[in-house]
């Protein structure tokens, strides 16, 4: 076991991990951060996405030990002071059904809007293309992002 220290949603956290432990499992089972989900477990579906040093990564493809000294943000961190504009729009438009893909979608959207506050539909589609949703057919999700980011709306 090795003790690692990471900044999780703004808080410094210490945790003991084995080298073969996966970040997703450590976040969920040892650090109590339940928003990242295990979908495919091989980097295809995006349900486990978290922001690592500001960039979205598949937490199922990262060793926990790799994140020693790094910064991780999950949906818990994004919603710390209330829901973001996009999250509110997603609620209003009933963007999700089962909600399993929602955390990953929110992470990818957050990363996109950090770089590009007013993306066009193609840019939104490209940014979310690594997040699979099996319920909605994507339309209400894309519309939510679009509506929340139209000129004058994004905060």
């Amino acid at each position: 076991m090795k003790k690692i220290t990471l900044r999780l949603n703004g808080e410094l956290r210490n945790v003991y991990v084995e080298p073969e432990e996966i970040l997703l499992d450590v976040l969920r089972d040892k650090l109590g951060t339940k928003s990242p989900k295990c979908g495919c477990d091989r980097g295809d579906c995006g349900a486990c996405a978290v922001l690592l040093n500001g960039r979205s990564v598949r937490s199922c493809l990262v060793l926990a030990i790799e994140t020693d000294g790094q910064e991780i943000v999950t949906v818990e961190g994004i919603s710390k002071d209330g829901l973001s504009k996009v999250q509110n729009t997603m609620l209003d438009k009933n963007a999700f059904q089962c909600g399993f893909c929602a955390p990953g979608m929110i992470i990818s959207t957050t990363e996109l809007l950090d770089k590009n506050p007013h993306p066009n539909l193609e840019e939104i589609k490209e940014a979310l293309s690594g997040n699979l949703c099996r319920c909605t057919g994507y339309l209400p999700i894309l519309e939510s992002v679009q509506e929340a980011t139209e000129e004058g709306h994004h905060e």
Partner: protein
Amino acid sequence: MAIINDFNYHKPKDIDDTLILLSDLKEKAKILAGGTDLIVHLKEEIVKTENVIDIKGITKLNKIEVSEDNVFLGAGVTFTEIIESAELKEKLPVLWQASEKVASVGVRNRATVVGNICSAVPSLDSAPALLVYDAEILVQSKTSKRTISIHDWFTGPKKTILKPDELVLGINIPIFQHTGVYEKLGRYKGEDLAQAGIGICVDSNKNYRFAYCAVGPIPKRMKKLEEFLKGKDISDELLGEAAKLIPSEISPITDIRSSAEYRTHMMKVMFKRGLQKSVALLKGDRS
């Protein structure tokens, strides 16, 4: 899901420490860069290893260096870092376009170009670009340093010429005047492996370069096609003639993602489409 087999985790701070580790451990170690292939393989027990050497702590390997006539991509450079470089978009358009077509944002943020060629799956998006650019791979062991041409790099599906005690430091790519494209066939737009891919590079002296991925056991240049077109002006008729050479250049298989016949047909289509685009770019059409 955790990884069943235990291993030691090493995170060396510099190249020398890594090379000492590699010379001691040889086959008993795997290099970890982005991990988007390695972690999947460890989970699925396709790869078992006693040691994982994480090279992300070596700052020297995380650099993109652009000089007048050369680009150096360190072993830690991710596809996202390439996409975010306006300089590489202009100087290495084929590689830039290929980088954009790798998987999805969350994978590109971690996956490295060097990792891509070390995994060496036949469908790797980065290879056609590196082949048309005559890239060279810089590798080092504790006792020696050598440069390997990308044309000698791939020795079979998922196999390369790299020795167990060698570390890839990066890739050197010469800069020259050209335009080009990377055309990729996936089952849908967005995240998918290539069913077929072709990198095309054209210069103003009517030299044409082509390289494929996913339609043969290893990615390769298409020399017959290059010879046939050398010095010629591209016309619709000539494109049709040239496309007839494609089946003799490739050896696609039928698998879950598509049939050999479909791959061959689409290679012809993508060749024509891509070459027309490249020639138009050369004439200054940026649309």
